[in-house]
């Protein structure tokens, strides 16, 4: 297991380098001249040329990449011109908020997705299965940004149970309870689609496993149905489910863009949307890079968890 972990960590290096290449390439393709964007359209050509030289934008692209990569290694992602602060500071601050939201959503979708999947598989073609299967289908078809609006209308405007926006109350907020209250609606909204996807996969994986011979052996041993379902069938199905949870982490991180906009959550997604509108290239670059890297890391965790659960792939 340790050797495998080290090998997987080493294999991560080219993936992360590839990420930096793609992010750099995308940003280098942006038409227009950052110096003009910074100085405004009234800048003199001399000033633009000088700023380009200072920013290193007159050098060959490959050289620019390595300079950028070197700065990245030092934790320097440049300076956001629209916010006038280091990109890294802004991105990390925003990303911590996104992590809270996405983490809560991921926990919700994993727990409920697995439970619904197991329940529906255990009662295949029964009433519970039919109803939940339909609910799941509705869940994966509903646009999350619209669902967010509906939930705000119901729970914040009509019932006034929960706050509609932000991460903390403006006055006297800051406690954990306050954060939780603000988190309920956005995290639920963000989790709905992923819950549906995990539930569907869990149902089919469970049905696949429940037909296997070793389930008959478990029953022939005289195990109770709960033990057969959770201890044997789910244990085997989980190996197929974990990679999908890893993929869902990507959907949750990406979907946070919408949810953060709808609920004005101060996360990296809302920041990206604003940064794209104001054409703050370095900020977009930094945001995309951090989120993508965290997704890669999360997939590594899913991968390691799968290996740990399945002794057959350990070598």
């Amino acid at each position, binding site marked *: 297991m340790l050797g495998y972990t080290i090998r997987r960590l080493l294999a991560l290096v080219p993936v992360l380098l590839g990420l930096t290449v793609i992010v750099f390439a995308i940003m280098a393709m942006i038409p227009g001249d950052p110096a003009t964007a910074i100085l405004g359209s009234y800048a003199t050509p001399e000033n633009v040329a000088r700023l380009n030289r200072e920013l290193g934008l007159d050098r060959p692209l490959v050289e620019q990449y390595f300079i950028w990569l070197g700065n990245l290694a030092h934790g320097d992602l440049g300076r956001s011109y629209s916010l006038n602060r280091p990109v890294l500071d802004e991105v990390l601050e925003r990303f911590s908020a996104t992590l809270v939201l996405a983490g809560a959503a991921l926990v919700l979708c994993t727990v409920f997705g697995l439970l619904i999947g197991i329940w529906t598989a255990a009662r295949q073609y029964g009433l519970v299965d039919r109803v939940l299967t339909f609910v799941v289908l509705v869940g994966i078809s509903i646009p999350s940004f619209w669902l967010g*609006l509906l939930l705000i209308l119901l729970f914040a405007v009509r019932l006034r149970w929960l706050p509609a926006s932000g991460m903390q109350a403006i006055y006297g907020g800051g406690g954990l309870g306050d954060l939780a209250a603000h988190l309920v609606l956005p995290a639920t909204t963000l989790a709905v689609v992923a819950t549906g996807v995990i539930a569907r996969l869990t149902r089919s994986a469970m049905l696949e496993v429940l037909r296997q011979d070793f389930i008959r052996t478990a029953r022939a041993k005289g195990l109770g149905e709960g033990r057969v379902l959770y201890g044997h069938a789910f244990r085997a199905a989980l190996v197929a489910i974990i990679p999908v949870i890893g993929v869902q982490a990507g959907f949750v991180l990406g979907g946070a863009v919408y949810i953060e906009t709808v609920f004005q959550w101060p996360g990296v997604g809302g920041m990206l949307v604003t940064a794209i509108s104001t054409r703050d290239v370095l900020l977009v670059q930094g945001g995309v890079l951090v989120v993508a890297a965290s997704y890669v890391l999360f997939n590594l965790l899913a991968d390691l968890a799968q290996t740990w659960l399945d002794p057959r792939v350990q070598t």
Partner: protein
Amino acid sequence: MTTLRLIWRNRLAAFGGIVLCAVVVVALLAPLLPLPDPDLTAPAERLKPPFSAGALLGTDHLGRDLLSRLIWGTRLSLAVGIAAAVIAAAIGSTIGIIAGFRGGRIDNLLMRGIDMLMAFPYILLALAIVAVLGPGLVNALYAVAAVNVPFFARNIRGVTVGLAHREFVDAARLSGKSGARLVFTEILPNVLPVIVIAMSTTIGWMILETAGLSFLGLGSQPPQADLGSMLGEGRKLLITAPHASIVPGVMIFLIVMSVNLLGDGVRDALDPRLRSGALSRPAAATEVRRKAATPAAGAGAGPLLAVEGLETEFQVGARVYRAVGGVDLAIAPGECLGLIGESGSGKSVTALSLLRLVASPPGVITAGAVRIGGEDTLAMKPEALRRIRGARVSYIFQDPLGTLHPLLRVGDQLVEAIRAHAPVPRRAAWARAVAMLERVQIPNAAARARSYPHELSGGMRQRVGIALALVNDPELVIADEPTTALDVTVQAGILAILDGLRRERGLSLLFITHDFGVVSQLCDRVAVMYAGRIVETGPTAEVLAAPRHPYTRRLIACVPEIGAGRRRLEAIPGLPPPVDALPEGCAFAPRCDKAAERCRTGQIALEGSGDRAVRCLFPEEVPA
């Protein structure tokens, strides 16, 4: 054709199809419908609620008619979603076909690139692309198409790799066709259906994603409006005019939902396993639906196991496969009964029916009684049945790799069996498990108990299977072809262990096999099964020496004898009858050389004297 009919039969998919068609037709007819100009502003009419005069769905903040904007917006969203799907499918499939067809370094290079793109969260990549191209509907379209390219590339590559090495492609290659012509004449026609299916399952996502980008203000720009930007505008008035956000949202939801319903229907229709019902989940115990009242139990102390008139069927759709058609068996304490027959004769189903372990659905026990110590397992409540399973009666199955849980240590699997029936502490149970593993002659049992099934050899695994069956000291063990999957040399060892334990513990044994050699070694009595019925029964030595049913005689003639010289091995001509179309009368008649007209009508009873019985009108003569 069948596929279309299957989609139609799936009511939800049909519903999705109808809704989708309706939406598409309305969107296509938009220019012909008597709708007001969707972009015509009328400040006096602003924010009228739905169902007001002249505006069925109300108006937005600029007084524009929402119904008109909805239909035109739907038209735009559908067009953009479909265009994105076509572009993604075209580019992705091209990459996939090239990578799959060329293979080698090109494949490697392309697929590493695709993997790289997949390392990004989907929506994030779309955002980055929009950031490069700038906000706008066409740019959003490109972005959504681009992030879906990897999905098509991977799927189509997989299919192409499978095709590129098939015989018909090799044949075309040898006939001198060029690579490009091969792709267009041999690969593309076969890949096309996969591309279409992949499109049908992703198009909903693409409509949703472009709407999402528009919602964020990165897609369509005013005054042009698709469903997403309508929703984005409505959001600003969420509290004063909720209808402006509800209306476009309902439409996106309807479209995506109907696409998903239809996509599910298509996938189900194409999945052959669903048609056969193989994906049904077997219940904890086989369903019992007895046609007649249970036969009354005989008085006094009967045998340990008494099976009376057992019938088990598989009901798949309208077809009924009668695997067991009225079987009677009895086993006394300490006795070994061999149940022998060809594959498909119903012997395994008989064995599994005893403790209701036949997969159900589709299996149903339709008649008979199974008495263990006088109690009918077919009438038991689940908990009572569970207490017998693995405790008083246990099973040894055929394939020990498939029948042991692959992810649990063998010791833990034994511990679980012990603790399912007695409140033994974990440590004590583990010690008992190891002792049991030693009893079945597993070397170094303490260490092996920590192994996973895949780390053991076939023979070792079957020893674990025996240990699992015997660990709770059962009265009856049902062994279903326990040595069939093993090497001949290993078989002998397993049989010796089983026989030794049986004698030592005074177990009863029901031994199922197709091998008369094994029966003669192990069993006191034998019952021969054919097409779901017992055709002959008697003490092993007598049946072997003088078979009375023609089928038994032929079956014994199939067994090679060591040292018997060059005797001809006689296979039985023909096949057993299909169990959903059993002939009337004797099921063996079509293959029997003694069959007469009488054999093909009516029921033939299992009759005999003493402990021998045969189900035949013309039994073989017993030498005096």
